[in-house]
């Protein structure tokens, strides 16, 4: 089981033209200038496998995750991230060789909180709870330290002894 493809459309700095990132097993390195969107890719992964906390995604609320139009354009109304896993070994508790997890957010009204969230597995409608269960069984959820966001190394290096013990508490 591994992450095979990532699709991003109108998610943060990724615009309306869907961006497809093909991955394989082993080590993939992403580089690029400051502000080019590297950490937004990690946010896209967290958006699907992580919990609800938008603070970790560097946005005030889900509306802040929708592409704002960039230099010239108007902001989009919805954003979508799709993760496709190769699942030959059935480590993901879904009976198909490829499993597609899609999370979509749509702005319904004017307010930043008027955003509706949609979850899909292989095209059929799902829920946050089902996503969470499947990801924790497959050990894909981000509760541990498998997604190390930018700045985490500095945070740990400068943390207090109590904060560090708190990390062990979470693991326990």
């Amino acid at each position, binding site marked *: 089981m591994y992450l095979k493809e990532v699709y991003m459309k109108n998610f943060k700095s990724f615009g309306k033209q869907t961006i497809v990132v093909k991955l394989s097993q082993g080590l993939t390195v992403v580089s690029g200038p400051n502000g080019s969107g590297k950490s937004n890719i990690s946010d896209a992964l967290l958006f699907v496998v992580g919990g609800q906390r938008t603070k970790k995604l560097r946005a005030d609320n889900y509306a802040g995750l929708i592409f704002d139009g960039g230099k010239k354009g108007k902001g989009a109304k919805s954003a979508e991230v799709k993760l496709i896993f190769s699942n030959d070994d059935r480590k993901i508790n879904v009976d198909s060789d490829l499993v597609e997890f899609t999370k979509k957010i749509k702005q319904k009204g004017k307010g930043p909180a008027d955003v509706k969230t949609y979850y899909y597995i292989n095209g059929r409608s799902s829920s946050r709870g089902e996503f969470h269960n499947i990801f924790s069984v497959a050990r894909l959820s981000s509760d541990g330290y498998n997604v190390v966001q930018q700045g985490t*190394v500095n945070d740990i290096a400068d943390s207090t002894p109590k904060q560090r013990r708190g990390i062990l508490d979470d693991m326990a």
Partner: protein
Amino acid sequence: KKEKLMEVFENIDLNFKEIYPKICRNGEGYLHLENKDEPFEGGLIIRARPPGKKMRDIRYLSGGEKSQVAIAFILALQRYDPSPFYVLDEVDQNLDMVNSEVIAKMIKKNSASAQFIMISLHKIIMNFADHLYACYIKDGISRMVAIQNIQDIPSYDEDEKDNE
């Protein structure tokens, strides 16, 4: 609750003692609970001895040395609770080229048994990639391009000029 914390602590300390010497090439380090009897009353101390130096608390190491300790601690946590895929976003930010290379080699080795995505500004890390992507931005819209040959990495100079 307390037994569980002690079990976690012992495992992660063991992992840390194995990983840190590899990251700093020959030093040593360990984790220590301030209050072993009542662990929830105290914190977790990390002490390390970079090669050629005396043992110190993480607070008194240099910026790069602190990063090495923090990376070893993160990898010790990951080993205790393994996952099939990992993302590491600029963990090598404070490291010089020699120490960045050590981390890249280690992650490359770990990538034999799990999928790793590393985000880095250091070219030295790219040498170890099975697949390489360059991210760039134009008019506020991000794009990604797969790089076949590391020489092809668009030097940020061209990219940046394009930006304006």
